[in-house]
């Protein structure tokens, strides 16, 4: 059974989760997460020592059986990696009883050793849960879910206090910032007598999209 969760914006501390049915039997559970991107607003995560991580969490209820919980990030690292970034692209953990607790894996960690912007983009993350008992069979599992998040460690969060950030609900800061720009023309009335469309002086914006997507625009004048 395959499940897919897509998100194009994540916040530090934010969580996306999906419940995946795990049934008794020998069908492995997989989930694909795509378009996970984190970056900053140019002020919050540009100092040395910041660390971001990609965390996968698996929880379940029931009287479980042994399973192998795995996360793989095959080739989806879309960002230019920050200085001294290190990551392990594959994490796996054997769970003796999948009903006993929440299990976490941290398959990817990036850090910065200089004042550079951290940006982390993942286009393809695969979660898997495979029964590994004697019969390769899930037994007694009632429910399970995968959860992905991009946390930042406490002291690093503290380092953000006092800096400009655009999301403050958890004092964690914005980790995905849409590309945006605004122009305001104040230097005098503009006239036209052109009966064919011509560019309005100053009203030009160039955006660079990291991934395909829509752009919203707004024009206000009198």
């Amino acid at each position, binding site marked *: 059974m395959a499940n897919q969760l897509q998100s194009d914006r994540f916040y530090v501390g934010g969580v996306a989760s999906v419940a995946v049915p795990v049934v008794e039997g020998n069908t492995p559970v997989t989930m694909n997460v795509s378009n996970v991107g984190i970056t900053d607003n140019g002020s919050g995560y540009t100092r040395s020592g910041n660390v971001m991580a990609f965390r996968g969490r698996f929880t379940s209820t029931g009287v479980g059986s042994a399973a192998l919980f795995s996360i793989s990030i095959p080739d989806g690292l879309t960002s230019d990696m920050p200085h001294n970034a290190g990551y392990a692209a594959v994490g796996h953990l054997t769970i003796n009883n999948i009903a006993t607790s929440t299990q976490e894996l941290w398959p990817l960690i990036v850090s910065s050793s200089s004042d550079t912007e951290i940006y982390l983009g993942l286009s393809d993350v695969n979660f898997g849960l495979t029964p590994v008992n004697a019969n390769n069979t899930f037994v007694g599992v009632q429910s399970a879910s995968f959860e992905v998040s991009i946390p930042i460690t406490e002291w690093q969060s503290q380092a953000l206090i006092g800096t400009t950030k655009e999301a403050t609900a958890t004092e964690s800061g914005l980790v995905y910032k849409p590309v945006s720009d605004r122009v305001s023309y104040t230097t005098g009335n503009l006239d036209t*007598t052109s009966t064919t*469309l011509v560019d309005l002086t100053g009203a030009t914006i160039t955006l660079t999209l990291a991934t395909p997507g829509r752009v919203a625009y707004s024009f206000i004048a009198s």
Partner: protein
Amino acid sequence: MNIDIGGVKEFGTDGLYENFDTAGYFRTISFSGTTGILAAGSHTIKVQWKVSANQGTLLCSANQPYQFSAWSI
């Protein structure tokens, strides 16, 4: 008024139409919209304008500027 993205007009050949039936009357011109899916990469987004006849004036000053913004969503 129209929005031009890489040479493609968002509102057709002529754009959004405002009928100024009396010379010297002021009108508020404001609009917003959303593009279709744009490819990854750089996109230049422009506001364009024209008149059907005579002269059009857009009032712009420090206290009365026009503002144009665009952002990915």
